[in-house]
């Protein structure tokens, strides 16, 4: 798989340089919703910039809940790729999201925390906010498989 080895190379580079800007460009779904990832000290910050295409309720107007979910899930997967002891491609097992507030058509930010990384499964919690980190629009949790293949 040529694409996969190219991605692996960029991932290794991102891990060693803390420059995460090229990663999301290689993942079609991440590119489609327009998300990107930047380093924040030793951590990563995920950003879903304001984009009218991602509207779910044109009357309010509010962001589509499914886009927010997809963004948070993708953030968790990239976070694992960047911060696991060994670079592996995590596979989603299940994903659960709580919507806490209506999210407006504005930038969304997300940060992830690996609650537990075992040898086979990693549990990641994700928090997303818009105006203030203290008032999250959603929290989510994902379990990922960490097979080596």
């Amino acid at each position, binding site marked *: 798989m040529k694409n996969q080895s190219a991605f692996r190379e960029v991932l290794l580079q991102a891990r060693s340089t803390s420059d995460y800007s090229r990663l999301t460009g290689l993942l079609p779904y991440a590119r489609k919703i327009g998300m990107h990832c930047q380093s924040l000290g030793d951590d990563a910050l995920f950003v879903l910039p304001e984009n009218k295409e991602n509207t779910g309720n*044109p*009357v309010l107007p509010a962001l589509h809940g499914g886009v927010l979910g997809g*963004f948070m899930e993708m953030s968790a997967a990239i976070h694992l790729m960047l911060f696991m002891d060994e670079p592996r491609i995590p596979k989603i097992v299940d994903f659960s999201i709580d919507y806490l507030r209506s999210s407006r058509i504005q930038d969304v930010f997300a940060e992830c925390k690996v609650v537990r990384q075992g040898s086979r499964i990693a549990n990641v919690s994700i928090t997303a906010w818009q105006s203030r980190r203290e008032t999250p629009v959603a929290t989510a949790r994902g379990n990922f498989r960490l097979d080596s293949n």
Partner: protein
Amino acid sequence: MNTDEQLESIVQQFLHAIPYCRILGMVPEQTSSKGVVISMPFNEELEANPGSGIIHSGAITSLMDSAFGMAACIALPEYETCPTIDLRIDHLGLPDPFKPVRCFAEAYRVTKTVAFTRGVAYQDDRDEPFAHGVGTFMRTGRTLSDMAKELAK
């Protein structure tokens, strides 16, 4: 109570009015008081890895969220805006590459305040789903036109 034809037209209008659903090409395939089936075509922009033909789980989440929301709406006696309270998706396997995906969703219980929904994502056979999910939605009692009026104030 709406007839199945009326429900179908409501779902169609909704999907069309929601920019993200329209962009992903979601279309209703079946609508009745028992639930909805919404399909989404394969699109390489939704791939997990370029060239893999596999739609990313995030896009599946979007499809299921939309279908669950539709199922919640049509289960209510009158249309209300229903924000999602929570959503959980189990990814049982991978969808087949380069093929459209579908989601069947139904509201299995509606109370005064909450609509409980569940459903599966599949391709050819509903009994062979690649994802399973549940979602809960809050009943606001506010119709879309109420909301538009409030916003106009």
